[in-house]
């Protein structure tokens, strides 16, 4: 979808409202399941909203439309965010979100490539998405196709050596149809990223690997849209957007809390979260 920046006053509030609604979906589905990863889903949801409702071309009635753009959730544990987005986009009924992680639901604890309409990769083991995206981007170029590949990684995920194998290869092959987004929420499962393996200077690392880099506030919708537009213009280099976010963003007691990497809210916590995320009537 092409957009003039003059559209922003109309487009931005709508996207923000959508993201807010999807935040409710995220905490509700994880509560109903009794397990899940709310922190990393809430940090990623703004960018995901922009990708699906501003940038990407797809057809929910034809999930395998060959010309579609592909989004790969490499940080697969944040799938509550992707499920919420796919439901909102019409890939499957919203009702299914209530059955997240239940034995007969196609919304499993991590995305199943074959079962989820709209899913482009199987998640759950970190470090693989950029490589899968690399293969897709190379295939697209081989076919002279115009569809693009977007891969979202976690920052802790950048500990995995495979990420850098893919980064080197993508730059070597000048894949400007491949865009990476690092959801830089500063936390891994147990503690801050910088206390485990220091990632900074992260932008410089990606630059050194041959990528064009941009760093933004990942909760500022205007910055997100601007970088998505800029990414389209880059030629000859892949683009990485380092999206500085807050883990658990939108729910005060989850923000910056490592605890909510992988645990569901209690009933009281859910009530408080929904109150904070209440949508205007």
């Amino acid at each position: 979808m092409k957009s003039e920046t003059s559209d922003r006053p109309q487009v931005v509030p709508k996207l923000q409202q959508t993201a807010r609604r999807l935040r409710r979906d995220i905490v509700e589905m994880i509560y109903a399941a009794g397990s899940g990863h709310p922190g990393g889903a809430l940090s990623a949801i703004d960018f995901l909203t922009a990708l699906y409702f501003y940038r990407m071309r797809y057809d929910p009635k034809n999930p395998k439309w060959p010309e579609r753009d592909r989004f790969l959730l490499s940080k697969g544990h944040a799938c509550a965010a992707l499920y919420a987005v796919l439901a909102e986009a019409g890939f499957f009924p919203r009702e299914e979100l209530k059955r997240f992680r239940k034995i007969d639901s196609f919304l499993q604890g991590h995305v199943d490539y074959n079962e989820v309409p709209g899913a482009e990769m199987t998640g759950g083991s970190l470090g693989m998405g950029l490589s899968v995206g690399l293969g897709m981007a190379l295939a697209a170029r081989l076919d002279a196709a115009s569809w693009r590949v977007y891969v979202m990684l976690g920052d802790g995920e950048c500990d995995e050596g495979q990420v850098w194998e893919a980064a080197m290869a993508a730059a070597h092959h000048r894949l400007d149809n491949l865009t990476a987004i690092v959801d830089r929420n500063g936390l891994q499962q147990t503690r801050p990223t910088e206390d485990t393996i220091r990632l900074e200077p992260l932008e410089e690392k990606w630059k050194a690997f041959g990528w064009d880099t941009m760093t933004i506030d990942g909760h500022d919708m205007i910055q997100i849209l601007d970088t998505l537009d800029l990414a389209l213009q880059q030629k000859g280099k892949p683009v990485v957007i380092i999206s500085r976010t807050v883990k658990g963003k939108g729910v005060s007691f989850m923000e910056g809390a490592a605890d909510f990497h992988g645990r569901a809210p209690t009933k009281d916590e859910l009530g408080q979260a929904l109150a904070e995320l209440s949508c205007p009537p």
Partner: protein
Amino acid sequence: MSQEVATRDAYGDALAKLGEVRQDLVVLDGDLSGSTKTGVFGKKFPDRFFDLGIAEQNIMCAAAGFAMSGKLPFVSTFAVFAPGRCFDQIRLQVAYNNLNVKIVTTHAGITTGEDGASAQALEDVAAVRAVANMTVIVPADGPETEAAVFAAAEHQGPVYMRLGRAKVPVIYKDGCDFKIGRASLLRDGKHAAIIACGVMVAEALEAADKLSSRGIEARVLDMATVKPVDAEAVARAAEETGAIVTAEEHNILGGLGSAVAEVVGETKPVPIQRVGIRDVFGRSGSPRELMERYGLTSKDIAAAVEKVIGRKSQLMRR
């Protein structure tokens, strides 16, 4: 004069042929295309050849990405590196997704030779066999390799195929009618059955000749598809001969021997003896010396046959 062809050479030529009829074929390698012979395809179809360097985890997932985008990817490296360095990637992105990725490794087994243990894959079949959705093929010679490549390309789903480094005798001199999951009966016999794959098929045939001169008629089955194993052929061999010997260039734990023992144990229990690497690592040496040192020759197979026949007669006497 018997002809000898390295299965990896047959692979390289087969890929080049396949590339002519399959426009969706792409080939990936990890800086080993001179050895794996994917370079033959690479020279002919450079646009469809991707050497992604010494980065096996990346290569395996890129292959998945190609398959998800409508391509037919063949991905090659040495058998120690796939599945060795990228097991999780094969497991999750290739097998769990049930993608049309064909992993063909070379330099498998102890006959890699002088490079030593780090280059001698003795566990790869066992590792991949334990992964759901994977088909596992170990061709015996050049012609069977070519037939298997084409069969793998036709097959819908992930395939693992392991080939050797050294030249091996041609067994299928008049071409190979290969079918995934179907064993080939190379020699009939009623006293025992030798079920072999890869380089051990030629050794099995030699063993059968030696045994015949001693009055023992051994059936020889080429079980090129280790997964799914041809359970019917195994059960029939057990039923009709009452004594089984398996032979593989691989650890006796988890590979062909285990696959056969699983069927035998559950359908028609008879004495069984596995010939293979006896759960040790290899070392540098010439391929022939190593096969002798580690018990992988026709002599070892013949001795194993005599052993199981002995156990068979003990059982009958009870």
